[in-house]
């Protein structure tokens, strides 16, 4: 009789958090993520299927019911569902030509919050994170130290940093060091 093998997925840095001077870091729960590329013709249908309007303007994002759509490029979005819903299933009915790849376990999300959040991220990120240049809801693919991240401003003093799983140790370590002040 064959034994049933079951694998338990262990998220990277699960549940880690740290509080520093005016800033707190928290590794976020696993979420559903999708890398989406589509021509303009399919965007409206995809927005309807996903229930969140895909933003068309650079550095903007849209959010609805715990689902975020982040503009990464002129035809490229990162869609995050905090509840971990199957984003690919939602897109499967769309007829227009598009490419949807599930990258849920490729990324680790880290919440950086507090009055010094922008300063801590700016320790390794060269972008202007003032509210003028990077308002609430702004998002961008950029760099932190020596790795690539996707940055989303969720509040005036709150950010979501998305990095690749294998870079998460580096990113979390980098941000913790920066948070020490």
């Amino acid at each position, binding site marked *: 009789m064959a034994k049933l093998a079951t694998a338990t997925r262990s998220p990277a840095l699960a549940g880690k958090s740290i509080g520093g001077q005016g800033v707190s870091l928290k590794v976020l729960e696993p979420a559903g993520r999708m890398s989406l590329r589509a021509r303009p013709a399919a965007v409206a249908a995809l927005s309807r299927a996903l229930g969140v309007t895909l933003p068309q303007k650079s550095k903007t994002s849209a959010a609805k019911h715990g689902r975020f759509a982040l503009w990464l490029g002129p035809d490229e979005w990162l869609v995050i569902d905090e509840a971990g819903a199957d984003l690919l299933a939602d897109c499967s009915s769309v007829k227009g030509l598009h490419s949807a790849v599930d990258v849920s376990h490729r990324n680790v999300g880290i919440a950086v919050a507090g009055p010094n959040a922008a300063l801590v991220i700016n320790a390794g990120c060269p972008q202007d994170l003032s509210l003028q240049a990077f308002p609430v809801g702004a998002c961008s*693919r*950029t760099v932190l130290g020596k790795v690539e991240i996707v940055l989303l401003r969720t509040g005036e003093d709150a950010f979501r940093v998305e990095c690749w799983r294998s870079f998460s140790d580096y990113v979390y370590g980098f941000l913790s060091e920066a948070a020490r002040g």
Partner: protein
Amino acid sequence: MLLIHCPYCEEERPELEFRNAGEAHIARSTNIAAESDEDFEKFFFIRSNPKGVIFERWRHIHGCARFFNVARDTITDRFLLTYKAGEPKPDIATLSSEAGPAAWANRPPDQLNEKPRAKRSTKGEA
């Protein structure tokens, strides 16, 4: 740090997000097999490497990931113009006569994301 205007993100971004991708406007022959060795060498290896204005491809690799073209002065390292891939090569004479500070992007933060000059905001399909 240089600030480079990405024509797709439509704003200035730090140079760390960009990567140079060699000389621009080098057309590959439609019948590459018929090229003579000398012509292929010219197409493949020989670059102009001028002192002065050069047209280059750049990629906003840690941003929107798009390739675009720039006109850059190799002496001052000043980016004279950035434009989307596929747009025609601008006239070099009009570029070099352009006056202005070498680091034109050194502006106060509140003016940073405004469209700088009419010439920079070239619109069109890639």
